[in-house]
């Protein structure tokens, strides 16, 4: 028996291995991870870890010894170079070939690099891995000013940390508003105000044209309109691209990610994909989407494991997500895609409110700012397929949980 080979040691890869054993799968399991570390939790990297509130040891999902104990062959610092579906083998970076009965591609996503001159200067970083963050931390100690390029979750979370550590911070965003790809305008407005209140300079519609340096190290960020921002440390957070190279080369169907069904199965019945790299017909979305979130990575890891262990379950999660910036907790559930009406519950000026998004009168998503009750109850309503009316949602005296019965 060749067992299960899992390509990728991130959240989805780890979860697949963990869930396989919980589902009673008894065959060999191997995790092939490119990073030199045992699988660890990424969410704290841009938050608690950088602030020194947690350490490397505590980021690990499990201590190394547990893998051996559970007969999980954990190989770190190893790349999978090729997948051969015909012979059901993968080729590793050292040349070794490893046979599989089932293969799980949990390859995640690669960070987009800034396509401008100077992007390779020292002091310019992306923020995805533990090593990225350790390198950022080293430069942060000496940098007088920090520039963040890209005002998505990663960029803004890092900006908040850098401010907390006392650095002057500028955030440059190419779009007209922060978090534009993922959030409603009301949220963009709130977070812009929040960061400005903490002293962050936020510049939207910024077309970064060049990173300038001296002696090979970054000193400034220049924009096409002539503005120049001094920076001894630049962190870019301009999105990710699903890592589908292995899947494509192996002839698997891809469509904005590795195309899988509701059991995380690819076009080859012995190959599964889970997490940021996979696109699927999402039952809640009602169409093929790809999600970049912990929730999805963990849930798809569980679904792939269940199918391989012979206990198949259909993926039916409602998406959820969160972000911590300063003392504000943003919690989101559902999908605002296609929504045509947004109701504000509470007073944004007071820093505690929620947005409920409706599509043709049907509740589809909630964003809660330091208002956990609305998040929790909203998420439960979405999971139950229940909807308040927009009128009810607007009335803060109306309790969402009354609909849950």
């Amino acid at each position, binding site marked *: 028996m060749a067992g299960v080979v899992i390509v990728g040691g991130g959240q989805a890869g780890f979860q697949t291995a963990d869930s396989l054993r919980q589902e009673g799968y008894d065959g060999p399991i191997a995790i092939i991870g490119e990073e030199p570390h045992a699988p660890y939790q990424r969410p704290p990297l841009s938050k*608690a870890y950088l602030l020194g509130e947690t350490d490397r040891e505590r980021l690990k999902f499990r201590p190394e010894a547990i893998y051996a104990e559970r007969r999980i062959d954990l190989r770190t610092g190893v790349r999978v170079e090729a997948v051969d579906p015909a012979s059901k083998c993968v080729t590793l970076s050292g040349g070794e070939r490893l046979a599989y009965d089932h293969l799980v591609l949990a390859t995640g996503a690669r960070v987009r690099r800034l396509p401008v001159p100077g992007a390779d200067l020292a002091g310019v970083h992306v923020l995805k891995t533990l090593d990225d963050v350790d390198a950022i931390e080293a430069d942060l100690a000496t940098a007088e000013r920090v520039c963040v390029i890209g005002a998505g979750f990663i960029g803004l979370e890092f900006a908040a940390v850098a401010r907390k550590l006392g650095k002057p911070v500028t955030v440059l965003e190419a779009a007209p508003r922060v978090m534009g790809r993922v959030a409603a305008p009301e949220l963009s407005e709130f977070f812009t105000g929040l960061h400005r209140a903490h002293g962050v300079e936020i510049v939207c519609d910024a077309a970064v044209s060049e990173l300038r340096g001296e002696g090979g190290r970054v000193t400034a960020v220049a924009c096409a309109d002539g503005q120049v921002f001094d920076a001894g440390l630049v962190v870019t957070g301009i999105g990710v691209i699903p890592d589908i190279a292995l899947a494509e080369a192996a002839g698997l169907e891809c469509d904005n990610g590795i195309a899988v069904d509701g059991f995380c199965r690819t076009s080859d019945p012995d190959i599964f994909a889970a997490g940021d790299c996979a696109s699927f017909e999402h039952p809640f979305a009602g169409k093929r989407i790809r999600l970049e979130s912990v929730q999805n990575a963990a849930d798809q890891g569980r679904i792939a494991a269940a199918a391989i262990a012979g206990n198949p379950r259909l993926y039916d999660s409602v998406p959820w997500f969160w972000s911590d910036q300063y003392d504000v*907790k943003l919690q989101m559930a559902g999908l605002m895609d296609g929504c045509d009406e947004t109701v504000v519950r509470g007073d944004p000026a007071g820093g505690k409110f929620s947005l409920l998004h409706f599509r043709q009168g049907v509740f589809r998503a909630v964003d809660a700012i330091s208002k956990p009750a609305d998040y929790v109850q909203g998420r439960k309503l979405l999971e139950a397929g229940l909807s308040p009316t927009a009128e009810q949602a607007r009335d803060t005296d109306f309790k969402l949980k009354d609909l849950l019965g």
Partner: protein
Amino acid sequence: MPKVTYIEHNGTEHEIDLPDGWTLMQGATLNGIDGIEGECGGSCGCATCHVYVDEAFLSKLDAPSENEEEMLECTVSPRESNSRLGCQIKVTDALDGIVVRMPEAQS
């Protein structure tokens, strides 16, 4: 180091010494004790580190934050009066000997 006893849903007991300041969630996952997931990395965001705290120790804990209070409504196994999220409880000498039970399911 404070001692913590974790009792799995099937009754298996694990007695562990945890470094001061570690959370109950970290203590379980980093000692390979099943029954606690903690998929949000311990930021009170997912309710998959649900534990039932032995009544004798309940009064020694800080009251749950508003966020924890609400997230406890998201647990998969029933919420009881002694339900807490393991990621929000840091062990200290004052909690030496604490006993927590794991629920039937976390996700």
